């Protein structure tokens, strides 16, 4: 595999191409596991999923079984879901509340802080027997930012705070929408797609496809009185590289938002409540920041595989690479814990209608990604083009934010710490200036 030549990144000539074997090769898939998923900070869960001591959620993180648990001491911890004795999963339900986890195979018992507290016939173990050495094992690193919990299997990884770089500001714009804390709603979207995982990262950041692919969604909203589709291509819409592979698109909202922009589909009775939510945000955060939180939409990518769409609702979407042409997706809805029942209903309706796999939008995204993966079989066409907006400050329908993924990815595959995230257009501008 000729990894250095998987991408052509030529800022001077505004050329950016990705070789399609990046989406089809088993060797690339394995390199990604080692160089990306075994190293980076990876999203695990949200603190609101564990409100009470003893609450736990079972997770798979890059294929590894993990228990995300709040101990009896209220501390959130992550453990590998495997008995230190012979390996059986000690947690065999997706969610619940337990003081301890007893392995059903030989009845070793661990408390919800991970300590080994019970071993049948323990006195039969001779020699250097030490319960502490047999506690549940934790991933090398775990930490949270504003309630979003991450882990890294890499003991030498930089701190989460440093890793998140420019993405923190955008996580703040989500977290600050609540006065008491954001919470993940019950109900999970779990689905598979027969396409390479990076295609969904691209798609989640790709404003260019919004208008043409999702015609049926816009037509439905137009019938409900929507007249703001032009917002998606507004001059103020932006695609931004946030450093370390993270990226975001920002556009004026073309539709209503529970926090907090009224739209006719919400009904007249919602006007007053939305105005009041908005006013409280202005009081707490000032006009400018409240404007960003209420009247703009953001598709945030936290490298390598977390998407937070803060749009007509808020998704927390995690993408797992299963094979070169298969991904698994898990998505949740996030909202302010204090939201009224009527606004919560609007939030869920908005999510179901566009963001979910049964909606008027996502099924067509899945179809597009699978169509790309099928198209890659035409190996004679070797390159995908991701060069939109290389000669200007990129808009949300350009691809600078998609290049952020690819530049970091390409560096990681080559064992380098980071890609070059400097602006695309500077070199071209310098070139033009010197030749003019």
């Amino acid at each position: 595999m000729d990894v250095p030549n998987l991408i052509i990144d030529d800022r001077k000539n505004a050329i950016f191409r990705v070789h399609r074997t990046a989406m089809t090769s088993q060797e690339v898939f394995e390199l990604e596991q080692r160089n990306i998923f075994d190293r980076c900070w990876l999203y695990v869960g949200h603190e609101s999923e564990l409100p009470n001591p003893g609450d736990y959620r079972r997770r798979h993180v890059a294929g590894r079984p993990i228990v995300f648990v709040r101990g009896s001491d209220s501390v959130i911890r992550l453990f590998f879901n495997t008995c230190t004795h012979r390996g059986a999963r000690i947690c065999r339900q997706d969610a619940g509340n337990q003081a301890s986890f007893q392995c059903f195979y030989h009845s070793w018992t661990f408390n919800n802080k991970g300590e080994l507290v019970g071993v049948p016939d323990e006195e039969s173990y001779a020699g250097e027997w030490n319960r502490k050495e047999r506690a549940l094992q934790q991933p090398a690193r775990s930490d949270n930012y504003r309630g979003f919990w991450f882990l890294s299997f890499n003991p030498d990884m930089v701190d989460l705070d440093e890793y998140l770089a420019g993405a923190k500001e955008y996580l703040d714009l989500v977290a600050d929408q609540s006065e008491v804390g954001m919470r993940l709603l019950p109900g999970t979207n779990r689905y598979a797609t027969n396409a390479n995982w990076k295609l969904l990262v691209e798609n989640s950041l790709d404003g260019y496809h919004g208008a043409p692919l999702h015609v049926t969604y816009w037509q439905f909203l137009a019938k409900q009185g929507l007249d703001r589709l032009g917002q998606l291509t507004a001059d103020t819409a932006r695609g931004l590289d946030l450093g370390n592979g993270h990226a975001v698109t920002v556009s004026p909202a073309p539709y209503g938002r529970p926090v907090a922009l009224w739209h006719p589909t919400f009904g007249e009775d919602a006007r007053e409540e939305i105005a009041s939510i908005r006013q409280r945000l202005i009081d707490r955060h000032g006009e400018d920041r409240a404007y960003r939180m209420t009247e703009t939409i953001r598709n945030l990518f936290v490298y390598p595989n977390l998407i937070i769409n803060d749009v007509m609702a808020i998704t927390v979407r995690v993408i797992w690479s299963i094979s070169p042409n298969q991904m698994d997706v898990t998505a949740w809805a996030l909202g302010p814990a204090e939201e009224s029942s009527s606004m919560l209903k609007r939030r869920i309706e908005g999510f179901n209608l566009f963001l979910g796999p049964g909606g008027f939008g996502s099924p067509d995204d899945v179809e597009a990604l699978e169509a790309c993966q099928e198209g890659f079989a035409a190996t004679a066409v070797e390159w995908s083009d991701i060069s939109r907006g290389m000669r200007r400050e990129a808009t949300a329908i350009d691809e600078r934010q998609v290049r952020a993924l690819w530049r970091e990815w390409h560096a990681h595959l080559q064992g380098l710490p980071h890609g070059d995230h400097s602006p695309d257009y500077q070199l071209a501008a310098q070139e033009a200036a010197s030749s003019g």
Partner: protein
Amino acid sequence: VATTEALAAIRQEVEAFLFEEAAILDDWRLDDWAALFTEDARYVVPATDARHADPNVTLGLIDDDIVRIRGRVERLKSRHAHREFPSSRTRRLITNVRVLKTTDDAIQATANFLVSRVRNGQTDHMVGRYLYTLVRAGNGLKIRSRRAELEAETLAPHGTVSIIL
């Protein structure tokens, strides 16, 4: 209180209605399907990890009122519903029909389903149960509430609910 005979007649009527609805959907006569609903109707497909949850407070897969039911039909009739253009072949097996409760104006019933969807080299089998609230309308029945609870743990391999389930 309905007699045993009357209950058997209701069950038979409900079964015939559900079989007819399944035929309408397998024939892709989507306008006819939308016409089966009352104006206050609701069509719900809950999340696979919250099958019995209240859609007002739980993220699901589908929660349509009559406006969205008609919108879904319009969408599926268009060539721009890409996941269903060209449209898939479906075949529905509806069984174990039971009447749960009858009142003066409504019948609550349940049935098991196996919906097979075939498209683009792939076959999906979606299994689950329906919960219906049907109401009398003229000589026939209309759907006030239709809920399809999937037994699947994840949407795979198909990855979406792109057909009417």
